[in-house]
């Protein structure tokens, strides 16, 4: 059976030879046009005049469009709240598209876009969390509150209380392939769109509205993305819609790709947060109550900010049974890029908040932070079951066992002693070591999105064509799902051809997001395969169909075996249908997002990490020395691909909290808009020792082959890097380091100075 095997990524032979095609590699017919946006250079203001004469007369320019030239909807919003493709009357952030230049080459379009003369009468710009609070600038009427017990009352009567605050910076996705789309006009108003998108159905939906045609006239194809990480859930809409609109207008194929600087200036990022906390605890570190204030900077449009902020609230407990927990969330509207989905979708920020609380309490009571974490853990299965602050029972809490195993495998206690010994002897270089756990909820919190479709054909030669609604962005979804299909038919995975995600084949798909890709699409594919398998079994055995097995390339019944392709040929001749759709909807999930109560998640995925770092107290420079991870993928569909997700997730999470810093100037311009100024982890930054192992267990819920989702959860293992830096700073004095994220060299240096004084 091909499930559970560490097979290579399906497109690996294409990737290693440069033959894998991304949107910008697709050859377009002669006469294709190229698009670029002319953008606002002002954070907030009224458009007084737009003079595009120089743009229109620039070399190789065909035409220029403003909002007035759009014949139908001027909207690319993924939420109910509007978000214009091109600014109408006013601008709301530096980088907001105002006009589209159409030229015969990419460079000609970009050059001409700089020639626009747009006069903007500036209005006061709300840039920061403080600005937004002062101006009461927010989405939704007021703060959202989720609560269990009586945190305020418990805090008032408590003996030991501390409070604090942490700033958590945003994060640029930095998918290596920037946003890109192409559109080819067809006959009778139809449009074919290629998009680097995690959400083909939404591209189809937005393009249809922009063209004023029904969705059936728009076909969107996505073979692969060069990375997504959430940044291609909604941010590709503007490019695809622009291409389709211009293609419909001119009758010519159109392509648009953002240059890296444009990409970073125009598109949204991970939401930055400020989290305030007040916590009541006992001498052994047991936490009685926490009151969180989560301030979330959403940017100028709603985009996906509400569910992002919800998920931050839903992860404010992480792994801990806190009897009184209150979370107050403010979704603040600012004149900056519209922050969007990013791997973890708010969960990481919520989790940083509670891990900070645990770290601070451990410092206060003077106990090992691991001990303080364990004493607050949710109950293990078999003990009296705890519920989260949103009322969901925690039924499968494996973290106690997982923690013990990781501490043993990583030799935590000995290494902690060694770190202390090192710090006692060394004045300049200080080491730190930290552990952090992850409990991450799996399912879309917008419950209706938890559905998926698939389409499977078996051709008369026995080859299998597979299609489903998920998109491939490098995570290995196609390979995993192909392994599921091969396993259902008992054939080698080479027999299965995986084809591009296509709205013509599977309709009404959800974004490939929320780590749900293989859970949802794997199940839908399994359903489709099983429909065909049932027809074949009945053809072979009639009423005894249940006794037919599919294994090793053969179909077995009553001691006889027939090659799979021979049976397929016979079945075709006997006029048996060899094609089927499959459909899956996640069971059990149901909750009220306003009240913050119910079961938003089908299950939890778990993991834990131990990170050791060293800092230079003279400069704040630092390195990760060693990382040990134990992570829960249930019964893994493909251990090698899952380990790849864990390693990549950890590094991306550690990057977010250490080196990746976004800086806006006082005019609201993003100053870190290229890899020269925005530092994602490089190969030379990686830990010298990096051990990753999978937890040996299965999902207690009935997921596809009892596997668990893996896309997002490991990102939060990177929190251990921030905590380890905090631990190293702690070695310099007695005060709590109060380290903000990202803990850049500058911040580490400042924290060292602070704890020393």
């Amino acid at each position, binding site marked *: 059976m091909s499930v559970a095997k560490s097979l290579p990524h399906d497109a690996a032979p*294409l990737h*290693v030879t440069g033959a894998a095609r991304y949107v910008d590699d697709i050859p377009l017919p002669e006469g294709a046009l190229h698009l670029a946006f002319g953008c606002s250079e002002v954070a907030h203001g009224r458009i007084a005049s737009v003079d595009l004469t120089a743009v229109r007369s620039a070399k190789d320019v065909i035409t220029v469009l403003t909002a007035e030239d759009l014949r139908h909807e001027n909207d690319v919003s993924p939420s109910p709240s509007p978000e214009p493709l091109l600014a109408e009357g006013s601008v709301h952030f530096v980088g907001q598209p105002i006009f589209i230049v159409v030229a015969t080459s990419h460079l000609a379009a970009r050059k001409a876009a700089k020639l626009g003369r747009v006069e903007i009468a500036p209005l006061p710009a709300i840039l920061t969390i403080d600005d937004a609070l002062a101006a009461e600038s927010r989405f939704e009427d007021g703060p959202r509150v989720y609560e269990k017990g009586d945190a305020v009352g418990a805090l008032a009567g408590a003996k030991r209380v501390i409070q604090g605050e942490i700033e958590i910076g945003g994060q640029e996705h930095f998918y290596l392939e920037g946003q890109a789309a192409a559109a080819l006009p067809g006959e009778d108003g139809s449009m074919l769109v290629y998009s680097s998108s995690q959400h083909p159905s939404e591209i189809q939906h937005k393009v249809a509205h922009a063209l004023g045609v029904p969705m059936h006239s728009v076909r969107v194809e996505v073979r692969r993305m060069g990375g997504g990480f959430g940044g291609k859930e909604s941010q590709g809409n503007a490019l695809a819609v622009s291409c389709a609109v211009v293609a419909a207008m001119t009758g010519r194929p159109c392509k648009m790709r953002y240059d890296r600087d444009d990409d970073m200036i125009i598109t949204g990022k991970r939401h930055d947060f400020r989290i305030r906390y007040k916590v009541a605890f006992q001498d052994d570190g047991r936490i009685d109550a926490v009151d969180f204030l989560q301030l979330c900077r959403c940017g100028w449009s709603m985009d996906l900010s509400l569910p992002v902020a919800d998920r931050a609230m839903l992860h404010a407990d992480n792994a801990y049974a806190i009897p009184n927990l209150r979370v107050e969330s403010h979704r603040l509207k600012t004149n900056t890029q519209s922050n969007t989905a990013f791997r973890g979708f708010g969960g990481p920020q919520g989790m940083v908040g509670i891990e900070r609380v645990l770290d601070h309490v451990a410092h206060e009571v003077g106990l090992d932070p691991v001990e303080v974490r364990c004493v607050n853990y949710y109950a293990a299965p078999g003990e009296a079951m705890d519920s989260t602050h949103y009322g969901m029972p925690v039924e499968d809490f494996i973290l106690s066992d997982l923690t013990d195993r990781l501490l043993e495998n990583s030799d935590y206690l000995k290494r902690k002693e060694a770190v202390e010994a090192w710090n006692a002897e060394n004045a300049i270089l200080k080491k730190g070591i930290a552990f952090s756990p992850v409990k991450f909820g799996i399912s879309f919190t917008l419950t209706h999105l938890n559905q998926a479709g698939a389409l499977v054909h078996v051709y008369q030669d026995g080859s299998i064509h597979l299609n489903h609604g998920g998109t491939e962005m490098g995570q290995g979804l196609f390979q995993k799902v192909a392994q599921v299909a091969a396993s259902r038919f008992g054939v080698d995975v080479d027999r299965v051809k995986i084809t591009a995600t296509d709205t013509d084949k599977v309709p009404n798909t959800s974004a490939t997001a929320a780590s749900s890709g293989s859970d949802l699409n794997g199940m839908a594919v399994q359903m489709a395969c099983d429909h065909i398998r049932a027809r074949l079994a009945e053809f072979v055995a009639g009423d005894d169909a249940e006794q037919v097995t599919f294994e090793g390339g053969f179909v077995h019944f009553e001691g006889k075996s027939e090659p799979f392709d021979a049976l397929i040929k016979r079945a075709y001749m006997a006029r048996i249908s060899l094609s089927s759709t499959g459909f899956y909807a996640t069971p059990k999930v149901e909750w009220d997002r306003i009240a913050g109560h119910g079961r938003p998640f089908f299950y939890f995925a778990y993991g834990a990490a131990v990170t050791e770092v060293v800092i230079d107290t003279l400069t704040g420079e630092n390195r990760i020395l060693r990382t040990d991870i134990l992570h829960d993928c249930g019964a893994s569909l493909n251990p090698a691909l899952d380990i790849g997700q864990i390693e990549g997730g950890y590094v991306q999470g550690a990057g977010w909290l250490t080196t990746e810093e976004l800086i806006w100037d006082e005019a609201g311009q993003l100053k870190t808009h290229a890899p020269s100024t925005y530092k994602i982890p490089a190969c030379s930054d990686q830990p010298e020792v990096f051990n990753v192992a999978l937890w040996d267990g299965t999902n207690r819920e009935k997921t596809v082959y009892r596997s668990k989702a893996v896309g997002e959860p490991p990102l939060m293992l990177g929190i251990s890097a921030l905590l380890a830096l905090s631990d190293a700073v702690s070695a310099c004095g007695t005060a709590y380091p109060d380290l903000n994220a990202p803990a850049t060299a500058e911040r580490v240096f400042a924290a060292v100075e602070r704890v020393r004084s």
Partner: protein
Amino acid sequence: MADKMHIKLTVNGTEEEFLAEPRELLIYTLRERLNITGPHIGCETSHCGACTVTIDGKSVKSCTMFAVQASGKDITTIEGLGTPDALHPLQEAFKEHHGLQCGYCTPGMITRAAKLLEENPNPTEEDVRFGIAGNLCRCTGYQNIVKSILAAAATMNADASSSSDAIGQTKVEAAE
């Protein structure tokens, strides 16, 4: 507008001759003029390495070199290294050791790694980590990339020693 320049270069063994504006960047020549789309555009500021090619024995980020600067030179891209049916040991290793996820950085990464192994056929893990530090990957966390390169080095060294043995034998036979 400046006059077009006469450019003649060799890409993956094929001679190419054309007229281009002096500001045409090599990555555009490769991708748009010659339809060689293995080298990708990632940042266009020579930081990410997705566009890495080899020019006269040096790793070069083709997004920040003008085509005219490459005139007269010999260029190798990922397409010149191997094909899906006949993979170079590095390509085989990246496939087998999961040295890729989204694959966008992969052509540049392998092109750089090929040069690195030419310069240093027996690299330590640290040599590899610093040797490819100019090529960014956002997906893998680099672990499997490093493993792939070390595995390819081992394979290539084993191949080299077995073929030198074979040559040695031929010499002995000839001497007899």
